[in-house]
């Protein structure tokens, strides 16, 4: 995997960590089961109020990377594909049907359906999509998610051009070399550098949103202000009071028909406690509950009835440096992985989250393996593994350094784990807190990777490739130094396998292998809880939601304003 892509991926990882750390109360990822279906008369002038969290840094679809930014983008724009809320598999959206894929898996042709318009009534054409995709690859845009499109011919090379030395001609040439062609008003074709069965999933993302040339010309640097922020999604942005609120109204030109909710206001409340107070005050209709609020919620029957579980799309793990003693021995790694009580971790320490009693991929995403018991808590088995290893009784098992980004919460987690390993394995682990920014530097490179560390990974798109290959392939972003050729070959093969069933089976096998080799011990899956007022209906949540009911936004309705 190219280094540049790895760097970007890791930047995303860190960003995801920060987002996760910062907004447990913001927009939590949501789950497969449908929440709050029908009942009640939809109010045709219904207004929904939710909390966006903080002011988005940018809502430019080809630059954005944070959850609350993507929340805005996915409301105002729509991609060629979308995701099925139940399976999270890509389904056609603006595309009329599934893409035509060439025999060698490297050419993907999408045909747009008829009648798709921007919110100002103008028709959406293939060229608008080409413009959007190209803009993501454009080095001048400097978006954080460009790496996702590196599988397209020429995108990576263009994106990595050094703007200080490149001439205009070179930049133009770079753009022309990108494998995205418009065949006619309704047809767009992508040339991929290698077969990538997951490209359909990428086509739903914000990196591939269409944009009008007119918007960019008229608005320039500030085209994301409401007057020029024209999209083809279910809603249009009508007002943006910076730092205070964003107001969306239904897009009457939306090809699926106007959404049921007329007006959707998103306020910007940073502080979780304030947001919770606003929810109780009926000033906002939906809220991601924080662990601290649970006690109040449980004690209040009304609040309790409004609570529902949501699945996340992130897994946190304890990484081992597989190149240094004692973790160069897989028995030791697996022993560590099996000797802490994951359920106890959630109930005593984490409070909110799901026990990682499975593989790397969390529940709610394709590839989740709930039967993966390889790393399950079993102190007796763990002790056996340790005894079998080449370090049994050796000094390397004492004073094992566990490095983490210094903050009070993580400190507690590390201390709990230290106790578990001491009690169950008899090994002493030493806590090594470092400054957060220093930590992110350490874990980026193999040479500096600590002996033991904690990291999290969140899905960019719902596909096993994004987990098993992107992270743990030997050239992936994870710096554990673990390398297994059989695993590498297996995941690479799966990446390119066109038949869905065979692909899933290959990934499953790889996932089990990963758990058994244990370059990391799965710590917990992120999951949360959502509070929804009873008058908000028609919400379908998924693990990948950046915004409420992301993949069925137009179905949400409000029965009355309370």
């Amino acid at each position: 995997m190219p280094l540049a892509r790895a760097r970007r991926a890791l930047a995303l990882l860190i960003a995801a960590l920060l987002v996760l750390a910062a907004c447990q109360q913001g927009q939590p990822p949501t789950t497969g089961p449908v929440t709050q279906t029908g009942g009640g008369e939809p109010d045709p002038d219904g207004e929904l109020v939710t909390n966006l969290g903080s002011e988005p840094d940018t809502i430019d679809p080809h630059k954005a990377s944070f959850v609350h930014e993507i929340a805005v983008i996915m409301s105002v724009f729509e991609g060629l594909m979308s995701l099925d809320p139940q399976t999270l598999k890509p389904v056609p959206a603006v595309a009329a049907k599934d893409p035509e894929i060439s025999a060698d898996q490297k050419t993907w042709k999408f045909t747009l359906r008829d009648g798709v318009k921007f919110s100002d009534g103008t028709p959406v054409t293939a060229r608008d999509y080409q413009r959007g995709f190209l803009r993501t690859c454009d080095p001048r845009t400097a978006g954080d998610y460009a790496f996702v499109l590196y599988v397209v011919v020429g995108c990576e090379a263009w994106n990595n051009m050094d703007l200080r030395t490149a001439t205009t001609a070179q930049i133009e040439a770079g753009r022309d070399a990108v494998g995205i062609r418009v065949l006619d008003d309704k047809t767009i074709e992508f040339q991929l550098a290698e077969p990538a069965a997951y490209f359909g999933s990428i086509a739903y993302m914000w990196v591939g949103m269409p944009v009008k040339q007119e918007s960019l010309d008229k608005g320039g640097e500030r085209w994301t202000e409401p007057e020029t922020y024209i999209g083809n999604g279910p809603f249009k942005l009508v007002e943006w009071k910076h730092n205070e609120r964003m107001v969306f109204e239904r897009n009457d030109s939306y090809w699926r028909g106007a959404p049921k909710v007329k007006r959707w206001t998103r306020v910007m409340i940073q502080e979780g406690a304030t947001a919770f107070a606003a929810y109780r005050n009926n000033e906002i209709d939906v809220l991601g509950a924080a662990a601290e609020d649970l006690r109040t919620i449980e004690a209040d029957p009304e609040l309790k009835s409004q609570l529902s579980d949501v699945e996340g799309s992130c897994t946190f793990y304890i990484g081992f440096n597989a190149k240094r003693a004692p973790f160069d021995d897989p028995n030791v790694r697996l022993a560590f992985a099996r000797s802490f009580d994951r359920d106890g971790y959630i109930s005593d320490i984490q409070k909110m989250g799901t026990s990682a009693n499975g593989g790397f991929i969390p529940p709610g995403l394709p590839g989740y393996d709930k039967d993966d018991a390889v790393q399950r808590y079993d102190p007796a088995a763990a002790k056996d593994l340790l005894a079998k290893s080449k370090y049994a009784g050796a000094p390397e098992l004492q004073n094992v350094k566990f490095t983490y980004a210094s903050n009070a919460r993580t400190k507690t987690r590390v201390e709990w784990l230290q106790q578990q390993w001491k009690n169950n394995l008899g090994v002493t682990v030493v806590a090594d807190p470092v400054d957060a920014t220093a930590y992110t530097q350490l874990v980026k490179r193999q040479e500096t990777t600590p002996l033991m560390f904690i990291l999290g990974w969140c899905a960019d798109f719902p596909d096993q490739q994004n987990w098993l290959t992107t992270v743990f392939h030997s050239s992936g972003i994870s710096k554990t130094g673990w390398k297994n050729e059989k695993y590498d070959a297996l995941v690479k093969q799966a990446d390119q396998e066109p038949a869905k069933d065979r692909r899933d089976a290959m990934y499953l096998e790889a996932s089990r292998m990963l758990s058994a080799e244990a370059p990391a011990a799965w710590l917990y899956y992120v999951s949360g809880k959502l509070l929804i007022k009873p008058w908000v209906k028609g919400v379908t949540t998924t693990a990948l939601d950046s915004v409420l009911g992301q993949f069925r936004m137009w179905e949400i309705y409000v029965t009355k304003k309370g």
Partner: protein
Amino acid sequence: MLTYVVRRLLLLIPTLFFVAVVTFALAHAAPGSPFDKNPDRPLPAATIERLERLYGVDRPLHEQFLLYLGNLARFDLGSSLVRDRSVAEIIGSQLPVSAQLGIQALLLALAVALPLGVISALRQNTAVDHASMVLATVGTTIPSFVIAILAIYVFAVHLRLIPIVGWGTPKHMILPTVVLSLGAMAFLTRMTRASMLEAIRQDYVRTARAKGLPEQVVIVGHVLKNALIPVATVVGPATAGLITGSFIVESIFNVPGIGREFVLSITRRDYPLIMGVYLLYAFLIALANLAVDIVYAALDPRIKAA
């Protein structure tokens, strides 16, 4: 008098220059800033290019400083490191809110503190005096954020009297304004009272009374004027206090102003924004102090004559 004013005006220049030097130095020293040679947060190429254009990152220090001063003169405060907007734009859009909040709080503080201080001094050691002194003491000893948290909890969550979200209507503004004004109010009350008491003890008051002037005339005509003059001098520091108080009040009450923006930019290490806001505030406070000094000089006949 004129020489005094001119002197004070001239003093403004080195003060602002010093502020610029300090912000420049701190911006350079801060780890993670655009000038950090080993950035822990690698910035995208376009941002680096923009930063170099604005700050001349690779050039020698004194050149950078001159470039910096030049930018300041043109009100170019740079671009936010995390936002897609320029610092001047961010400040411009949020400043009216903070200004409104601040001015309202200052007026409220004066409107309550001055009469209260005067009455307390005149009715020294009565119930009114004791009550106002207790309030004043409470206002200065209990940290403002505690009062703010209690206020929002009681009024918004429990009593549901004020909304939490939004800004603009009186209902939204009343609680933040009151809470913000409390610190200044307490401080000004004490000052006014002390100043009044000092003024009343002056010899000329005894003279006036001895002359047979009615108490009312004595107080209003002579004492008040002289008592209020020293109070005018503390409006400067009170303004400074309001500014720092606004960080807390805006954060807790979710007011979309510069103060909240500033607090956020600190956690996110958005140095251009931090420095831009600081420069703005330092400038405002320097101006406020200058205005106060001039007004004081105009009012105080002792200085006028000098």
